[in-house]
Structures are given as C-alpha cells and as structure tokens.
C-alpha cells in the first residue's frame, strides 16, 4: 500500500513540474528586456546581433524553443548562461546552492527548536501570561521586517560587541578544502577546526534572523495542534496513570500533534531552499535568492529557467518526502 501511495505521489509531481516550467518560460519571454542586447551591447552590427540570436536559439518560434528546452532537460542539461562566459547553468547553481542549503538547515533548526518549545509551553500553560507572551511572539515575529532584525543583530553583535561578523560566509584564507561546498561539513571532514568556527560564526546571525522570522508560524501551529491533542482522552488517561507531565507533553501529545506540523515544516524548508533574498542581502550571503534575482534583472533566460526548474524539483522532492514520512508516521494515510 505504501508503494502504491508513493507511485501515485510521484506521478502527480510530473504534471506539476511541467506546468511550472511552462509558466516561467512564457513569463520570461513576455517581460521587456532583451538578452541579446545585454550580451552584445548597443553598438553591435546587425549581423552580430543575428548571429548571437541564432546561437541562443532565440530566432526560433516559441514552441520550438520550448521543445528544445524540454528535450535538453530530459538529458539533464539545464543549458548555459547567456551572459558572462556561458557557463553551464548547473555549475552556476552549484556555486550558490551550498550557501543556501547551509543557511536553510541552520535557520530551520533554529525555527523548529524555538517554535516547538514555545508552542508546546504555550499550549501547556493555556491562557496563562506565558501563553499570551508566546502568542504575541508568534504574531510579532512573522510581521518583522527581516532587514531590520538583521541590522539590529549586526549592530549589537558585530559593531558594538565585535563578537560576530557582519556578513559573508567565511573570512578570506579560511575556506576549507571543497568537498560538498558546505563549509561546516567540509571543515569537519577535513578536520579544519579554525575554519569550522569561522564558518559557524558567520552563520549564526543570518540563521537567527531567518529562524526567528519563521519560528512564529511554528509557534502558532504547534500551539493550536497541541491544544487539540491535549484535550483527548488518552492524555487524560496518561495523566491518571501518573506519568510525569513532561513525558505526557513531549512524548505522547507532541508526537500525535506532529503530523500536520511535519507537513508545514517540509513546506517551510522547501521555501527556504528557494533562497531568502532579504536575509541574503542583509548579510551579503551568496545564496540562491540574490543569485536568481540578479539573473532575472540581466534577462539571463536559461539561467533563470534552469534555476527555477532546480528549485521546483527540490520543492517537489521535499513534498514527496514529507508525504512519505506522513504516510509512515500515520498508517491511516496509506489506506485512504
């Protein structure tokens, strides 16, 4: 049954991807701006413009361009950048994705830890002052303007206390030998301890900024799910048996409240992987968000398309994974 469920989910993902790719393909061609002009400049003679247009395949009708792109995609070719040396798009993505992955994982950990603890404690102390504080926290954090929060943290910890860096991923000369592109992991794998702490120090502020921002959603979701579960009979029964309250809350109640939270966690993580432009800008973090934004501004069609496809694949994969975990945790799902 689980296998059938998985197959069904995979098959549903395919049309989703195609629809997304088509929408992006059309939007890029409808927007003003010309990648040929961006490459050859304003003074190129007509024959040069024609030659570059032909080379990029932009002289073809739109449906031919689309078919060519799809067939390349099926061969795993995301194309080449239209500007700056025509590097393969996948190489351009791999220059930036590890930074985004590292930030996403750490921000996610921060947000989940804060969200689960505050949401659980708020539900445990329903209608108390602490509950009100955490509910307020949940609303305020999601309304925060990320650059403001980031700048405040930079001012306090970087400028005044000089404890942590203002921005970037790592200091010059401190990069570990590249294995995965994730600096923390690479420095552990190469036993480069100074590099590990240098990378970690750069990761702290952007992770807290982004993590706090999205933790509000988790706080509210955990709280409402926990309140519902805590009203159930099996919780009353557990308490009646004398099980310590912490075990009742964190082992029994939270587990049962976790399934919808898991779905939300998966979606949030997937969105993080698409890049966090505001955080990346504030902390000069060389991630996917600012990379994609820049390539949109330069009308680098192939890079934008390739990057969006990559992100779409990631999001679809994570959604699949969440669905699988969901079905694994709750057997009732498989039989629906």
């Amino acid at each position, binding site marked *: 049954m689980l296998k059938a469920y998985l197959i069904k989910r995979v098959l549903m993902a395919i049309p989703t991807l195609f629809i997304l790719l088509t929408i992006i393909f059309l939007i890029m061609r409808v927007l003003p701006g010309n990648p040929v002009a961006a490459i050859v400049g304003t003074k190129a003679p007509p024959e040069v413009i024609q030659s570059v247009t032909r080379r990029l395949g932009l002289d073809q009708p739109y449906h031919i361009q689309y078919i060519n792109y799809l067939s390349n995609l099926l061969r795993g070719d995301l194309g080449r950048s239209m500007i700056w040396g025509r590097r393969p798009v996948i190489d351009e993505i791999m220059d930036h994705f590890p930074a985004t992955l590292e930030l996403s994982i750490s921000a996610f950990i921060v947000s989940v830890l804060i969200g689960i603890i505050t949401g659980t404690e708020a539900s445990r102390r329903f209608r108390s002052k602490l509950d009100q504080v955490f509910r307020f926290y949940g609303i305020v954090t999601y309304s925060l303007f990320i650059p403001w929060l980031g700048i405040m943290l930079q001012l306090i910890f970087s400028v005044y206390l000089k404890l942590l860096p203002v921005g970037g991923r790592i200091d010059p000369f401190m990069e570990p030998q590249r294995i995965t592109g994730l600096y923390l992991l690479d420095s552990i794998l190469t036993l480069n301890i100074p590099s590990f702490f*240098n990378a970690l120090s750069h990761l702290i502020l952007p992770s807290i900024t982004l993590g706090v921002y999205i933790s509000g959603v988790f706080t509210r979701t955990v709280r409402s799910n926990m309140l519902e579960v805590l009203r159930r009979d099996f919780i009353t029964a557990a308490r009646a048996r004398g099980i310590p309250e912490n075990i009742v809350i964190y082992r029994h109640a939270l587990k049962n409240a976790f399934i919808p939270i898991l779905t939300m966690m998966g979606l949030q993580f997937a969105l993080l992987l698409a890049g966090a432009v505001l955080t990346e800008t504030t902390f*000069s973090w060389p991630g996917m968000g600012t990379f994609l934004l820049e390539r949109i501004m330069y009308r680098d069609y192939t890079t934008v398309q390739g990057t969006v496809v990559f992100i779409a694949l990631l999001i679809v994969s994570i959604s699949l994974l969440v669905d699988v975990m969901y079905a694994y945790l709750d057997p009732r799902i498989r039989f629906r």
Partner: protein
Amino acid sequence: MPGMKKVYLVILLVVIIAAAIGLGYYWYQQVYVKPREVIILGTIDKITVLDPAKAYDFFTWEVLNNIGEGLLKYKPGTTELVPGLAESYEVSEDGRVYTFKLRKGLKFTDGTPLDAEVVKWSIERQMHLNLDPSWLVTAFVEKVEVIDKYTVAFHLKRPIAYFPALVATVPYFPVSPKAYPWDEAKDSTVGIGPYKVVKWVRDVELRLEVNPDYYGPKPKTKYFIIKFYKDATALKMALEAGEIDIAWRELLPTDIIALKKGGKFNVIDAPSPYIRYIVLRCNQPPFDDVRLRRAIAAAVDRDRICEKVFKGLVTPLYSMVPMGMWSHIDAFKDEYGERNLELARKLLREAGFSEDNKFKIELWYTPTHYGTTEADVAALIKESLEETGMIEVELKSAEWATYAAEYIAKGVMPIFLLGWYPDYIDPDNYLTPFLHSEHCGHLGVFYNNSEVDELLEEAMVKPTIEERQERYEEVQRILARDAPLIPLFQGKLFLVCKKNIRGVVLDPVMLLRYYLIYKS
C-alpha cells in the same frame, strides 16, 4: 533519586558542550590572525566582465587597471601620461601614426609573452567584437601594424590630439590570446599588471596577489582582497566592525558624514570628474521642441538635489564639462541662472501648455546602478518641475541591463537620468559622445546640429589647447541654448579607511591604485 541524576547529567553535558565550544572558539581566534600583508576593501559595486573588450563600467575598469596595464598610463595623482607597457612612442608629422616601442621580456600571468603581434591581435579583437567600449578604438584607429617584434604602429583615421589619453584606457589594453577567445567576450583572470588574480567568486570576493613578473615597482601589500557587499548599510557596519580596512564605492551620504564626525576613520575625498545629467530625446515629440527642453533646463533645481539627497557632498553643475577641467564654463548658469521658474512657465505657454493643460512627461531612472539615492534624485526633479504648475511628471524605472542595453539605444525613454565617468581625461569625452550627430544616438540623445559637429571635429585635431578651448566653450554655449542634455551635479569621490591605511591616491582618473596602498 533517578530524576535528579538525569537533571545533573543534562547540566553536565551542557557545561561540557559549552566549554568545548568556548575553547574551540578561543583556539580559532588565536589561529586566525589576519596577515599584516593583507588589505581588505569592501564595496557594493560589481565587476561585470573581466574582458577589456566588453567591460564599460567604472569598477571593472578599476580592477582591470590593477591586474592589467596599457601601453601608456597615468602617473598617480596627476593627469600626466607616462610609459606603461610601452617604453616610448613617436608621432608622425601628420599626426596620424603613433609608433610604440614595447618593453622587452614582459609576459602575461599565463606565460604568454607580450609582443607587437599580441598588441595587434588585442586591438583587432576589440574591433571585431565591436561591443560597448569598442568605439574608443573603432572611432579613431584605422589599423594596427607590426613593425618588428617589439614595435607596433597605430594608424589613425585622422589626427587626434588626445590619442595618448585613449591608449591609456582599458579597451587598448593588450590581452593574452590564450586567455581570451577571438569570437566572444569572456571572463579571464589573466593579466600583466602589478597584481594577479588568485581567486574570484563573483559578487563575493576577488583576491589579488602581487604579480612577481610585473616589470615595475612591486605593490606594497602582498594580498589585496575585495569583498562585495550587497548594500551600503552592511558595508558601513563591516568597516565599523573592523572586517574591512577600506570602504569604497559607496557609502550613503549620511553615513559618510557620520563617519567623518565620529573621527575613528579617515575620510578621504577628492573632486571627481563624474557627472550626472538629464537626457532629452531630441528627434521625437515632445522634446524635438527646443522650448520644452529649455523649460525643463530652467525649472530644474540642482541645489535641492545636492542638499537634500547628497547632504552637500556633490556640487551643482552647469555644463557637461566638469568643473576643474580646462575649457569648463558655467554655460547653463549664464543662460538660465541657477533656476528660473518664470522663464520655464513662459516657454511652456509658448509651447501651448498651461495650468489646465499640463505638459505630461515620463521621467525615467535606473534604481541601483548609480546608488540607492537615485529614486530620491528622480523624486526631487519631479517636485521641482511640477512647481511650475504646468508640468506633470510620472516616474518610471528600469534595471540597468534593460535601461542601458535596450531602452537608451532604442529611444524608448523621452527623458531620463544618466551619469558619466570619463573614458579619457579630455573635454572631448564629455561633449563628442553626447552632441556629435554620429555618436549621440548611442546615448539616447539623437541631437543633430552641424555647427556643433564641425566645432567638435575641429577641436579634435587642433594642436594647441587654446584653439581647442575656444571651440569647446562655443559648444557649451550652444548646448545650454539647445538643452538636449541638462547637467545636474558633479560628484566627489569618498573613500573611508582605517587610520593605519596609507597610500590612497584619489585623482581625476578616479581609478584606485591598489598597488600603492599599504598599512603603516
């Protein structure tokens, strides 16, 4: 009691982890000592492409001037041209042939020797690709001839008094044929200058190291690193936190003033020949009507822009030729005064507009290329024009790639903001590209005045400064009368650095020489 044991265990674990983290952090602080031979410069500017055939922006030219060099170069702190990769040159009697003798034994960082064939190849590649900066070559050079292994001759289309200044510009830089393809522009870190590139991660870091094969004096600092920040606030904080030694291009005016007052850093400033102006498209309505162009010129309030947006850090400009450059006259001030709303209203009425029938225009600007203050500049121009009571301005913007590569050349924008950093230090560079009918279309002006064309062509070839000055002054007077362009303000260069930084030279060339900078 089992419960209590667990609590103690947890506390112990937390203490051990915290101690481990603390010790590790302490160790890393001891290990990571920033080498003295490193200077880190922070900027929010960007490198576009490291190819002299395509790069046409200030910051990329600056980098290329530190990792490459021309046959001639400027002596730091002056506008005096001195030998570069060429040890000498001669000019033919008719002024049309410049023969350069190259220094012997030079090579690029990929091992390719520099000789006359390489120079010829580089210039011909520039002409073949014909990208944005290529006009600096193709407008003047007919062909390049190899005389012998280390002698190369440039044959010009006509005698040009300022050709040596052109040769010092990036489009004339020799490049290694192994590093650059013939057929397209491409990033390459191969050069022949005082520094070589050891690491480049676009928009993250550019790491330069002393080039041991450079013929001239070695740079004073072994490593020069450029860190790219995404906004001016982060740049300022990086300086205050001690992460960078120099903040360059560019801090916000309010931050510059605050840092100056704070006294913890050196704020170095110098007059700059970079200018900002309004462009009016002259070959189509509405600005084919000179009365409307003159009305805009009379109504614009330069002082307000300089004070409100830039806090007095820039200066109102009344000509396209910057102040401090020979031949500059305050032509627009002579014509309109500092501002003349009555004249603007009179001209608008003559053109058929009134308070009930307002002159509606779209004023275009680009939001980030000239810094984050650009939207404020546009807003203040709108405000000042609307004070006539007879103009209605709608603000529109486009990102630089679209603005420059498409909208300007196609004449999509009837009135728009632009800036100019000089390609070469000569008044010709501030007038010919904008006013000569053969060239001004590339900058969206589309102005056609045969008298101006003739004056500019004469000034190009006249041998004495006095003869050239006379013509450039007349061109400026015609420019003010016809107003196809409206100069707004002239900038200043600001560099903020730690107190122990020395060797910073800001001069009219505006290109920072990293190789002169060191820590005391």
